[in-house]
C-alpha cells in the first residue's frame, strides 16, 4: 500500500512508505554530500570555463591536439560510466524497495559489482590512453591543451578511484544480511557521489575529444 503520492522520475515505489511515513520532497542522501557535490561541480565548472577560454586563445593548437586524442577510447569510457550509473541507480532502487529481502539485497550487491566493474574498466582504460601519449613524447607540458587534458582527466580519474572505494562500501552494506538503520542514506549518498563523477565526465568528454 502506498502511503503517499506516487513519485515519478526514478519510479520510486515503496510499499509501506519510508521510515518517517511522509511523502513529498526528499533529499537523496546526507545533505553534506550535496554540499560536497555542488562544490566539486563548481570547481569543475571553472575548469570547463578555463578550457574554453584557453581554446579561444589558441584554436589551432587545441583543434590539432584534440584531433590527436583517441576519441574511440573517450567514447568507450563515456559508455562505461553511463552504464555504471545505471547499475548503481538500480542497486539503490532495489535496496530501497525491499531492504529486508535477502534476494533483493544480493541482487543489489551484484548490481554494485557491475557498476564498480565498469568504473574499474574506465580507470584501467586510461592506462593505454595516457601511455600512447607519453610514448609519442607528449606530456603535461607539451602545450596548453595537453596540460588541461592531463590535469582534468587526471583529477577526474582520482574522483573515479575514490568512487570505486565508495561503491565498495555500498557493496559491503548490501551484502549484510540485515540492513543497518542509516543504510538508505548511505546508499543515496554514495550513489549521488558516483553519479556526479559521471556528470563531470559527460561534460569533459565533448570538451576534450569532440570540440576540435
Amino acid at each position, binding site marked *: 500500500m502506498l502511503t503517499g503520492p506516487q513519485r515519478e522520475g526514478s519510479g520510486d515505489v515503496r510499499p509501506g512508505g519510508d521510515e518517517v511515513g511522509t511523502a513529498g520532497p*526528499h533529499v537523496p542522501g546526507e545533505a553534506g554530500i550535496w554540499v560536497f557535490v555542488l562544490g566539486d561541480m563548481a570547481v569543475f*565548472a571553472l575548469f570547463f570555463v578555463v578550457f574554453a577560454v584557453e581554446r579561444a586563445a589558441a584554436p589551432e593548437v587545441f583543434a590539432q591536439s584534440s584531433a590527436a586524442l583517441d576519441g574511440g577510447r573517450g567514447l568507450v569510457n563515456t559508455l562505461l560510466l553511463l552504464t555504471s550509473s545505471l547499475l548503481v541507480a538500480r542497486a539503490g532502487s532495489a535496496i530501497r524497495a525491499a531492504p529486508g529481502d535477502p534476494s533483493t539485497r544480493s541482487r543489489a550487491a551484484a548490481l554494485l559489482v557491475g557498476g564498480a566493474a565498469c568504473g574499474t574498466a574506465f580507470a584501467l582504460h586510461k592506462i593505454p590512453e595516457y601511455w600512447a601519449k607519453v610514448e609519442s613524447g607528449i606530456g603535461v607540458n607539451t602545450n596548453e591543451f595537453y596540460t588541461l587534458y592531463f590535469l582534468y582527466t587526471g583529477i577526474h580519474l582520482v574522483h573515479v578511484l575514490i568512487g570505486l572505494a565508495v561503491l565498495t562500501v555500498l557493496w559491503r552494506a548490501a551484502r549484510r544480511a540485515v540492513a543497518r538503520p542509516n543504510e538508505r542514506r548511505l546508499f543515496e549518498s554514495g550513489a549521488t557521489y558516483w553519479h556526479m563523477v559521471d556528470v563531470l565526465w559527460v561534460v569533459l568528454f565533448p570538451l576534450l575529444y569532440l570540440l576540435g
Partner: protein
Amino acid sequence: MRHVLIRSDTVVWVLLVGLTLLVWTEPLLTLEAVPAAASATFLVLMAAVKVRLIGLHFMELRTAPLALRGLFEAWLVVVAVVLTSILWFL
C-alpha cells in the same frame, strides 16, 4: 508489483547512450558549411541534456526539494550559457 523503477532508469540510460552515439556519429558536425561555433554549441547543449537526465533521474533530483534541484539546474544553465558565450564571442 509495478516494475516502473526498473523501466524508467533503463529508459534514461537508453536516452543517454543514444545522445552520446548521436553526437559521435553526427555527420553535421564535420560539414564545412556548419560554422564551428554552431556545432560546438550543439555539443554543449547535448552535454547539458545528458547532465540533466543524470541529475533528475539517477540523482533523483526530480523528487528532491526544489532548492536543491534549483542549484543543480542553475549550475547547468550557467555552465551551458558561459561555455556557449565563450564559443561564440571569444
